[in-house]
């Protein structure tokens, strides 16, 4: 695991081999063998990439061009497709349903990202301390949600947050809080889904931030410590600025994930109640179930554009601060 293996091994091996190979070259007949080897060496990479290229063309490149074409037609999965120009895009852009799905995702983003970043940053900074007891126990425990299957967890969410029989309302009932309709009211469904997302992915963000923290020089902290900077000051004025790029990386990743969020609403709320959890990703799926494929294709491109613009905006923001 330390990576030292490959670098040290070849040295003795190499010298003995080169000695042998120069002896080989003195014989003429070996030249033919060498040319054959050279030809093989030229052809080999084509064979090596061929299986990947086949899969890549069939299941990535071709579908991508297909979506692009489809988005300009009104094809419903069978029969003849009619070219409709930009109609699908215009239909979506003028459709309140489309905008409310974007809006729902944006609200989820606001509920998720800031809270998650604060929790993950605090956890990562604390876990970065080598003297911390139970450090690896914490780290493993935090990553457990990330490796568990989302569908299983989403189902547990359904049970735990049930209005009448759920453990959460049971717990709150102990301190006298009346039952909350976590998944059945439009005010609470989004926060409940957001909590699921935060629960599931925060450990992942902790890992990313931890790997960023590894690159910060301890001397910076020592200097700050001498200047009498407190813990919180240190975190805010040293760690966060130095970790800026890693934090931004995490934000971009999570933005992509939040706007594509599909499985969570699919399993937990089916986009409801009253469409309050119809995320951008779930709205796109609705076109598929209605066989409205042209609109679905256009929707997916609009989503790609949105996500790319957001990512670029974050990168710009980062550049501006540099």
């Amino acid at each position, binding site marked *: 695991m330390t990576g030292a293996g490959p670098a040290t091994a*070849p040295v003795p091996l190499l010298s003995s081999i080169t000695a042998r190979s120069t002896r080989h070259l003195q014989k003429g007949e070996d030249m033919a063998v060498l040319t054959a080897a050279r030809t093989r060496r030229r052809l080999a990479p084509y064979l090596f990439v061929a299986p990947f290229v086949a899969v890549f063309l069939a299941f990535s490149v071709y579908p991508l061009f*297909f979506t692009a074409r489809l988005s300009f037609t009104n094809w419903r999965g069978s029969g003849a497709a009619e070219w409709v120009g930009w109609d699908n895009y215009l239909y979506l852009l003028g459709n309140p349903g489309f905008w409310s799905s974007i809006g729902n995702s944006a609200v989820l983003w606001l509920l998720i990202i800031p809270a998650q970043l604060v929790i993950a940053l605090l956890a990562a900074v604390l876990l970065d301390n080598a003297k911390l007891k139970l450090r690896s126990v914490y780290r493993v425990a935090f990553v*457990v949600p990330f490796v568990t299957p989302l569908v299983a967890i989403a*189902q547990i969410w359904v*049970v735990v947050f049930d209005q009448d029989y759920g453990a959460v309302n049971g717990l709150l009932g102990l301190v006298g809080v009346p039952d909350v309709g976590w998944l059945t009211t439009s005010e609470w469904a989004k926060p409940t889904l957001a909590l699921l997302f935060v629960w599931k992915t925060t450990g992942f963000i902790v890992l990313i931030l931890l790997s960023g923290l590894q690159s910060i020089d301890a001397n910076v902290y020592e200097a700050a410590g001498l200047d009498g900077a407190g813990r919180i000051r240190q975190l805010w004025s040293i760690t966060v600025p130095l970790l800026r790029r890693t934090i931004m990386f995490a934000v971009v990743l999570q933005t992509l994930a939040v706007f594509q969020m599909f499985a969570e609403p699919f399993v937990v709320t089916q986009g409801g109640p009253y469409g309050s959890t119809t995320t951008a990703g779930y709205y796109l799926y609705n076109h598929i179930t209605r066989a409205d494929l042209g609109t679905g294709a256009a929707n*997916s491109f609009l989503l790609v554009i949105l996500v790319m613009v957001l990512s670029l905006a974050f990168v710009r923001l980062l550049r501006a601060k540099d």
Partner: protein
Amino acid sequence: MTASTLTVPGTDDADSVPRDDTAASGGSPRRPRRSRPAITSHVFLALLLVGFLAPVVWALLSAFKPANDIISSPLAFDPSRFTLDNYIAMFEDVPIASGFLNTGIVLVFKGAITLFFAPLAAYAFAKYEFIGKNLIFGAVLVTLMLPTIVLIIPLLLEMKQFGWVNTYQALILPGSVDAFAIFWMRQVIAAVPDELLDAARVDGCGEFGIFWRVVLPVIRPGLAGLAVLTIMNIYNDFVWPVVAASSDRMATLQVVLSTLAQNITGNRIGADYATVTGELLAASSIALIPLLVLFIALQRHFINGILAGSVKG
């Protein structure tokens, strides 16, 4: 993903990923960072730990409770009343066994295909010159930036054209040898010294022999990371299977699970709520366990894989 412009943790080479506690104390001169952590730190971390583990532990334990107890007293755990009834009912009502079987088949084939052909192609990208190399690799990078959602509709239509809807091919081939695996393995293989390959070459090793006998053994740590990441992704994959192969016969474990949840939230017709809840927790538990065990056994490879995998948008 905007990999080029942002710090991408853990992809520089396969092994640098998270320096572990042992590596930190043993090897590199790591800073003795700050003082002993205060009580408040432990309180914060412990609260997080409880929060992160509670739903899983609750589900694992509750699955053993009589179905009626789960809903009447969700917070009480009385080991003397523990029973396997939920598991038994679940195995009778839900095709969970065939879900496991389907997931297992997909895992074996898709995993093997990816773990063999991705490093092979990556080896060509890292160590050979050939016509179209930059074009193809550029396309790989573009695909990394695209949300997977874009491909769902055309892929589904393609499956229909091939007559592959509700088949193993549909579950196995799309998404195998994925662009990310190529991207990652290329970086890992690029770090293998050329001298090593040349030495094998003059030693009479064929081009494939070099890959098989030199490259693969040397990149074993990176390969292990890719293996666990691939297993995790295939096992947990849901969106594509539910779209492409949701028939009872072909449903993977995750798809089987999702139909159970819909019984509860959608229409509570048929079975009563307590029974379905009991079955649902039993099914969720049994789906969680294989990955939990694998994760705890192979933590370090998992963390390597997850970090490297984070470049995938």
